Each structure stands twice: as structure tokens, then as C-alpha cells.
């Protein structure tokens, strides 16, 4: 989950990192009040969970409360980079000066966290995790507590000295502390400026791991940070319905249902095979109605509900059932669920199912059930690509 700026800064503040004074506002009037209270020039910033706000015009400067109010009205009037703008941060304008960059992230090649520090701002973090010029990088050994002396060592390598070196050591230790304590996958401060007395974090980007949110109730309780969906776009009603079906029955997984606008419904699985089959369907010229990952031995009820959901989607007339050679999913249960779902929708199974390719346990039984409804069972001698080809070819 990507935090918006004020949320990320709440974490930084709780760790003792210095920030510009700021107010959260939701109306132009509040923006004017905040600017008056802060005094002097301010920055008005859209609170949306994405990068590139400055370039997209979502961060603007105001010299008076009136100007802040006008800018706020403008920013609140339309979405930014696909996100509704409901909240702004009005922040005192920080002193100018050279901008630095500090971050903690995981490096999959090192299989460990890395701490990064650069004295030049505008760094591309993605390119930096693996190491790049002008950037000091330190791999963290998690069997040892990350300490300020390690931060100072990195600061020295980045080219800092004196008071700045000492301050950076503490700052890096605190950033690592946030990263570790809150199960973050990224904590980035960019830009970081020297105020003369200490470092000031002007903007922050924090990503928390979805799988670990359950163990951080303090985020909501203490800092007001609520968990939310992390997909690139909000889920559609179809996707929400699929998630509901998945949640109400613990047997099997109906993961990652994503809606597309084609005619061909897909019941595909598991994780890797779904990616492979979706590619193959597109390559064969098919237009899928959805993506999904079915697996983990789903119950008849779950398969039935998913089948019905897909067939209820406007314009969906065909269904392809394709999975890799399964290890623990029972083929007969999948067959039963598919047939039930189709019949309950008042449709004819042999007309709806273009291909059924699920090799594995109880496949003999599954084939018999399908045969009764006039559906040919494709066994393990039919490749995923061939199955996708058949699924697309049978349109009539």
C-alpha cells in the first residue's frame, strides 16, 4: 500500500525526523486559513498515492492565503493522475539549497534491505536499488540492529562530513527503524534539505506491505492511516463480487479476478499458468472478459458462483476452463461447479464451454461428467497453447 504524503510524513514525525510545518485541508477556505496560520509563502500539494505530482501540476506554490485558496479550489476541482483529489497539504515553503536523497528498500538480488544515500536529488530510485553512480549504498545484515554508526559510515561514503555526517547517521537509523517497524517495502525521502541545523524531509514516499498490514493496527489507531486497495485503479463491481465469492468460502482460491471487456470468460489457474494462458488467448486473437487465478482445490460451490458471475457479465457468451497440470485441485469438482453454474444461468453447457483443459487428480471422473453434457475433455496431451487456440477458434 502506497501511503500518501501526509501519511508517510506521520511515520517520519513519529520517528523524530524533522519536517516543514504543514496542515491537512479539504476546502479552499481551510487552505487559506492554513496559509495564514503558517505565515509566509506556502506549497499546496495534492494528497494522492502516486509519484509525478509536481510534473502533473499537483504541487503548486502560493505567496498569500488568497492565492493558496485559489490554487486549492483549482486542485480540488479535478482528478490528478487518475486519482480523486479530496485532500491537500498546505506546507511552509522550505529553505532552498542542495537537495539530497535517502531511502531504504529491499534488494531481491541481495535478499536483504539496502540503505541508499545520495547528495544529488532527482534520483531514479528504481534504477538506484541495484547501485548507480553518485549513490552510496549499504546492504543491511538483519541479524544485527541497524545503528547510527552504520548510517555515518554510509554518509561518509556519500561525501558528507562534520555536523551533516552526524545528522545523516541518525536520520538513516530512523528511516531504517520506520522501514523495519512498520513492515515497509520502501521508505524514501526525496528531497532532503539541510536547514543549517539539521536535515528536513520535504517529501516522503512510503510503501507498506499488504501481507503485513494485519499486524499494524497502530497505523489506524495512532496515526489515522487506514488500509485501502492498492491496485492501479479502483476495483470494479465485478471484481468486488469475485472477491466476495472468494472470501465467503475458504476452500480453494479465486484470486486476482480482473475485468476486461471481451466476450470470452476465463476460468484459469494457477498463478503462472493464468499468465501463460492469458498471453496465449491474446496471441490467438481472443478477447477475454476477465483474468483470474483459480486453484487450491476450490469447492463446487465456489466454481459454480464464479462461473455464474462471469456468465452474468454483459456480452459474455463463451467460457474457457484451462489450468496447468494440477497438484491438489480435483478435476471432477471443477467440472461439476462449471456445469452447475451454466445450467443455473439457463444456458447449455456444450454451447458455452469452448474448452475444458484441467489435467490432474480425479480427471477420469471429471471427463465423465463433462461427457454427459456433451463437452469434450482435453487431457494433458493438449498443451496450454493448443487449449487457448481451441478456446478462441470456437466462437459460433
Amino acid at each position: 500500500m502506497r501511503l500518501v504524503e501526509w501519511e508517510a510524513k506521520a511515520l517520519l514525525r513519529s520517528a523524530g525526523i524533522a519536517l516543514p510545518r504543514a496542515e491537512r485541508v479539504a476546502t479552499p477556505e481551510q487552505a487559506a486559513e492554513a496559509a495564514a496560520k503558517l505565515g509566509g509563502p506556502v506549497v499546496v500539494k495534492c494528497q494522492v498515492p502516486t509519484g509525478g505530482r509536481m510534473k502533473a501540476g499537483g504541487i503548486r506554490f502560493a505567496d498569500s492565503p488568497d492565492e493558496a485558496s485559489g490554487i486549492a479550489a483549482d486542485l480540488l476541482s479535478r482528478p490528478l493522475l487518475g486519482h480523486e483529489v479530496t485532500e491537500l497539504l498546505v506546507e511552509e515553503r522550505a529553505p532552498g539549497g542542495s537537495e539530497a536523497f535517502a531511502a531504504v528498500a529491499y534488494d531481491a538480488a541481495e535478499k536483504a534491505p539496502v540503505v541508499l544515500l545520495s547528495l544529488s536529488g532527482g534520483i531514479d530510485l528504481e534504477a538506484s536499488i541495484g547501485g548507480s553512480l553518485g549513490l552510496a549504498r549499504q546492504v543491511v545484515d538483519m541479524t544485527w540492529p541497524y545503528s547510527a554508526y552504520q548510517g555515518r559510515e554510509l554518509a561518509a561514503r556519500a561525501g558528507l562530513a562534520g555536523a551533516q555526517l552526524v545528522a545523516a547517521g541518525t536520520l538513516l537509523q530512523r528511516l531504517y527503524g520506520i522501514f523495519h517497524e512498520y513492515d515497509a517495502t520502501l521508505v524514501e525521502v526525496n528531497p532532503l534539505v539541510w536547514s543549517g541545523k539539521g536535515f528536513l524531509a520535504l517529501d516522503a514516499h512510503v510503501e507498506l506491505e499488504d501481507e503485513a498490514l494485519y499486524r499494524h493496527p497502530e497505523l489506524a489507531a495512532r496515526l489515522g492511516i487506514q488500509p485501502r486497495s492498492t491496485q492501479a485503479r479502483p476495483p470494479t463491481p465485478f471484481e468486488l463480487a469475485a472477491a466476495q465469492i472468494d472470501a465467503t468460502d475458504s476452500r480453494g482460491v479465486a484470486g486476482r479476478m480482473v475485468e476486461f471487456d471481451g466476450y470470452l470468460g476465463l476460468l484459469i489457474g494457477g498463478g503462472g499458468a493464468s499468465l501463460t494462458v492469458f498471453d496465449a488467448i491474446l496471441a490467438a486473437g481472443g478477447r477475454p472478459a476477465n483474468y483470474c487465478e483459480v486453484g487450491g482445490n476450490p469447492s463446487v460451490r465456489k466454481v459454480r458462483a464464479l462461473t455464474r458471475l462471469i456468465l452474468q457479465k454483459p456480452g459474455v457468451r463463451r467460457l474457457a476452463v484451462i489450468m496447468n497440470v494440477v497438484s491438489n485441485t480435483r478435476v471432477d469438482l471443477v467440472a461439476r461447479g462449471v456445469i452447475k453454474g451454466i445450467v443455473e444461468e439457463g444456458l447449455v453447457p456444450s454451447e458455452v464451454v469452448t474448452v475444458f483443459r484441467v489435467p490432474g487428480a480425479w480427471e477420469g471422473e471429471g471427463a465423465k461428467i463433462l461427457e454427459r453434457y456433451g463437452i469434450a475433455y482435453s487431457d494433458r496431451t493438449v498443451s496450454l497453447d493448443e487449449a487457448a487456440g481451441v478456446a478462441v477458434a470456437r466462437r459460433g
Partner: protein
Amino acid sequence: MPILIDETTRVVVQGITGREATTFVRHSLDYGTRIVGGVTPGKGGSDVYGVPVYDGLAQALAEHPADAAVVSVPPSAAREAALESIECGLGLVVIVTERIPRRDVAEVLAFARRRGTRVIGPNSLGLISPGKVKLGMIGGPAEDVRRAYVPGPVAILSRSGGMTTELANLLSQAGLGQSTCVSIGGDPIVGTTFADLLPLLEADAETKAIVIYGEPGGTQEEALAERVARDRPRLPIVAFVGGKFVDRMPGQRFGHAAVLVEGDRGTAAGKVRCLRDAGVLVADELAEVPSLVRRAMGAGREAR
């Protein structure tokens, strides 16, 4: 000789009384795996298909020395179960649990590095040396395993558990058996990567070719390509990368936790390009893999 495991490997299962674990214990025993003990705190003194259950790993190992552990516990308990295996000195720890927080994974791997323990996974379906031994869910019931996996010269390394079996089946259908097949795990950080396994397979006389299943997200395929370009391995490598459509949908989650394209990083197209540049044969369609393997192995023989 297979890598990592063989028919002499003695295995303990952590979380042995869980639903998934009891299932794969049955299947693994049927396949010939030597499961000598299991652990579920609070269930000590019971047994699972004749395998004795202990409250802690140290107690289990005191009576039944072992070489490898399979960790199959809920995500919130996985860190401790893995650390217990590492502290007890097991050389190989296979973590099948999915959705373990990344911090826990990285911490486990840090301790594993310190102790010299090899970790496979997390989010691995297991590994198998066909005809000899299997660890974890991989392949399902013994009779299904025997239908999909047959002994032979091709190693399979896969970021997807299901695709490990799909590839084995595809190769077996084409008359190409397998030496060792590893579901390396679908998480962003895994204990053993493609590149980590390459030197082990290079040293294995039985293996004549390697098949890789890759996905968008992360940089494992790129790291392998770099290693191949640098070390010029004797073994030909055939790769297939699933999820090419994901490249066009940045920020949207598909597949395993690791499958997330961010900016230009981790795209399927980029991985295919890197692998090809390094001399790896990349199949455009999955079904092409067996013929590419045959061609690569034939070319290898001619070169010698």
C-alpha cells in the same frame, strides 16, 4: 545424481498436522520420501500416517536425525519455524507457506546465510527428483507425480509451482525426463534464485539442459542472464516467460506477489531480451519448449 535432495535425504515437516501438510506427507511417503518426524507445538506424541509428531524441532531431531525441513505453517508462524530449522542446523529448509511478510523472509534469510543453510522459497510448491524423492506439494498424489514427472536429463527451475508440473508434463510427453525440478517460489524475495542454482546444476553430471519458467516483476531473469553471459555455462538453457500482457498494465497486480511491473523495470519483454542476448533460448510459446530443449542438447553433443 540430483541436486539438493536424493533418496537418502531425511526430512522433517514443520506444521505436520496442518491440512496441507498432512496431504503432502501422505503423497510424499507414497512417493518414497523419507519423512522421519514432524513438529506441531501442542500436538507432541501423536502421529501423521505413522510419522511421529513432536512439540519442538530439537526434540524431534534428538530421536530422528534429519537433513532437510519442509516448513508448512501459517504465515504468522513461518519466521519462527524457519529460524528453528536454521538453528537446529538443517542444511536445507523448504518454505511452502505463502503470504509471509517480506521482513520476516529477509530476516530468515539473513540468519540462514550466517549459518550456511540453504532456503528454498517461500511460496514454493516444493522440489522433486523424479523417481527418487519429492518435498512439499509438488505434483500432488504419487500416481499423479509419476504421470507428470519421469527421470531424465532436464532440470526445471520455476517461479510458479503449477508451471513446474506443467513443464515436466510437457517434457515427459515429448520423451524428455527430468533430473531435478525446483519450484523456487513466487515471492519478491526468495532464498534461492535461478542464478544461485546454476552452479549446482553445472556440477551435476546427470543434468544436460535447464528449463526456466520466468514471470514479470523482479530481476531474477536479468540476474541469470548476467551470470550466463559471464560464466558461459556448459548446460544449454531454455526459458519461457509468462505474463507478457502484464507489461501493458503497470501497477496492476497479477499472478504471484512478485509479479508487478513498475515503470520499465521487470517487464516480460525486457527479461526475454536479456535472456536472448545472453544466449538463452527463449520459447515464444510454451509448447515450443521441448523442441528447443532437444535442439539445444543435440547442439551440445555436436560441439563436443
